[in-house]
């Protein structure tokens, strides 16, 4: 009898031990809503490769993402891994919500030579790398070639004056009422990136001096030229759609795809969507041009996978699982950038992982909807955003509000810039 009881106890203990051993590490991963089906499929493949890790996905609208994440971090809602962006990094890192990967995974440094410099800059805070890239891209100038030809132009515009001239011609020929549209809703995070892309197309593009003091509010600066061009386009020439002030990325892409917009400044991956057969009425008619302006410079940005402080505090097992996740999604698996390549092939997302430009499969895929040589040329003159500070994201919203006041005619372009500069100085204090 004793032997039977002892045997039963041993079996019970073994069952409990194996059950405990088999308990997978749970990771919560937050993203902004974009191709969630692809993300879920990537997660499924990751879980198949690492059966001991389970990932729970939570997605939120891009426009509200930073607000939602702030609420999560402040409220300590379990979050282990998250999409982040160069313009939030300083804030999130300073608040100690995300951790430097180098402190936990020194092997991450080996990836640096593979990444584009602007992407490294966008993921670095106080000299330490905080992420592995989800994607990195440039803001580009997109035009509807068919509309341009109907207006009598064989080449895309090379300067902002040419953009105005061509837009006026289109308006006069009644090809489209407002040839240009922007995504300038007060709170959309793309607003500032688009504005800066236009500023960076000028020779003297600097918005701040070496001590991070604003210089963009002086008369004749690149920022002033861009702001004035926008105000004139909307109020004087009436070539910029006034509905830009309520527009965010997806409605703009839809309006463009429907043939209501001839020119737009957008993140490059939208070109892939616009030219996807069957996705839009005008699909196939869209091309990219180098950003109009003196140097054709633009903004290069990076969105990346970050590990939260909450995950780091959960212990070694979670940290190890998080690294496997980070490396699978933003780094190499079996020597290849599997997930990054998938995003590039299927969705046209740009990448920071430079070796991928040599991949013939990727080059062929990009040429189906875009122009890989032009894309490389644009990437060469792309630069990371200046003066990324912990209050940069907050300030950008104030800047956007002030610029919209100028676009509504409530103040001059220069006064709007001066007000935005004053806000910067106040926050810098």
């Amino acid at each position, binding site marked *: 009898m004793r032997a039977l009881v002892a045997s039963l106890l041993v079996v019970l203990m073994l069952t409990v031990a194996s059950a405990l051993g088999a308990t997978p590490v749970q990771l919560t991963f937050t993203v902004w809503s974009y191709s969630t089906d692809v993300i879920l499929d990537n997660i499924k493949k990751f879980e198949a490769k690492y059966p001991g890790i389970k990932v729970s996905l939570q997605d939120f609208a891009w426009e509200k993402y930073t607000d939602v994440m702030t609420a999560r971090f402040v409220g300590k809602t379990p979050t282990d891994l998250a999409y982040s962006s160069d313009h939030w990094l*300083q804030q999130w890192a*300073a608040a100690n919500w995300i951790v430097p990967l180098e402190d936990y995974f020194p092997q991450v440094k080996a990836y640096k030579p593979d990444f584009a410099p602007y992407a490294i800059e966008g993921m670095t805070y106080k000299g330490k790398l905080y992420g592995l890239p989800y994607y990195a891209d440039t803001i580009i100038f997109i035009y509807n070639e068919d509309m341009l030809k109907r207006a009598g132009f064989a080449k895309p515009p090379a300067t902002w004056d040419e953009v105005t001239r061509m837009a006026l011609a289109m308006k006069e020929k009644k090809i489209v009422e407002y040839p240009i549209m922007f995504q300038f809703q*007060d709170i959309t995070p793309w607003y500032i990136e688009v504005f800066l892309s236009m500023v960076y197309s000028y020779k003297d593009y600097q918005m701040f001096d070496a001590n991070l003091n604003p210089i963009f509010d002086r008369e004749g600066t690149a920022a002033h030229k861009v702001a004035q061009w926008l105000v004139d386009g909307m109020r004087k020439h009436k070539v910029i759609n006034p*509905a830009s002030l*309520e527009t965010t990325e997806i409605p703009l892409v839809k*309006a463009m795809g429907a043939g209501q917009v001839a020119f737009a400044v957008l993140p490059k991956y939208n070109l892939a969507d616009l030219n996807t057969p069957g996705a839009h009425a005008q699909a196939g008619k869209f091309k990219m041009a180098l950003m109009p302006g003196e140097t054709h410079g633009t903004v290069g940005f990076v969105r990346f996978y970050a590990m939260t402080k909450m995950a780091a505090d959960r212990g070694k097992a979670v940290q190890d699982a998080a690294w496997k996740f980070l490396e699978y999604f933003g780094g190499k698996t079996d020597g290849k950038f599997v997930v990054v390549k998938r995003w590039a092939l299927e969705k046209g997302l740009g990448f920071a992982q430079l070796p991928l430009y040599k991949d013939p499969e990727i080059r062929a895929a990009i040429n189906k909807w875009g122009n890989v040589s032009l894309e490389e040329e644009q990437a060469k003159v792309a630069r990371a955003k200046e003066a990324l500070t912990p*209050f940069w994201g*907050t300030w950008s*919203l104030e800047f956007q509000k002030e610029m919209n006041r100028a676009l*509504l005619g409530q103040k001059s372009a220069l006064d709007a810039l001066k007000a935005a500069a004053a806000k910067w100085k106040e926050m810098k204090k």
Partner: protein
Amino acid sequence: MRAVVLPRRRYREARYAYATVLPVVLLVALFTIYPLLFAFVTSLREVVLYRPWSQPFVGLKNYLDVVRSEFFASAWVHTLTFVMGAVPLATVLGFAIAHLLNGRTRLAAWLNVTILLPWAIPTVISGIIWAWIFNSSYGAFNGALYSLGLINSYVPWLSRPRSALLCVLFAHVWKEVPLTSILYLAALQAIPDELYDAARVDGAGGLAILRRVTVPLLIPTTLIIVVYETMVGIVTFDLLYVMTGGGPAGATSLISYYLYNSMFVSYNFGQGAALAVLLAAALVVFILVYMRLLRSEEIYAT
């Protein structure tokens, strides 16, 4: 004969009464008093989330900064404009619809069902729906006006400061009217028929009955509706967050949006808490004013 209550028994009863209400008092303290006190304490400190290592005591500085800010005045102007439109509209429309629902007509049965629809839709969803309806490029509102020949080209309703605020106001009233209708309907159904019969016997017409019987008896309900709608109007946030993002150029940034901006965009919880305390104080003032203006006992007495 007066009943004599022994001190010991009275003490036992009192102890029982306190013990009975204690759980509720604790819950109220936990979910109302503690957050209020916490917000007040936070408002006296410099709490900026990206400077977590330093939260010094700053006294009333946050209050002064908030009140001196240019957005404080403009946000209050937008909020009061919004409330002055929303409260009368939701009240009057609710009263009118309740009258229709209270009538024994075929329309009443149909309205009974349809009136509840806006109420059943979550605010965020109704915000998305209205944003689509008022969209400048493909909105149904523009489409309808264009089809009727009332406009020559689509109007950017949500891109103009005044029309954007009106659009949000319209969506807000659409969402609120079902509640006010139902409150009025319940009050109307509680009025005894004898009062109407007596008024008719005295020779009162429809309007006189409305003025002398219905309206006075609905004063307590009106007070509740006006106070509630004022509070809802002042703290409205989700609808405008979805429809306009506070824009264009901050034109639909109500005081609640300013509060949200301070906390979740600027990460300045100290200023946000100061604003929340000021907002709570303003709400108390509004409620006291309404209660003073609409004291039902005095109105009944006149």
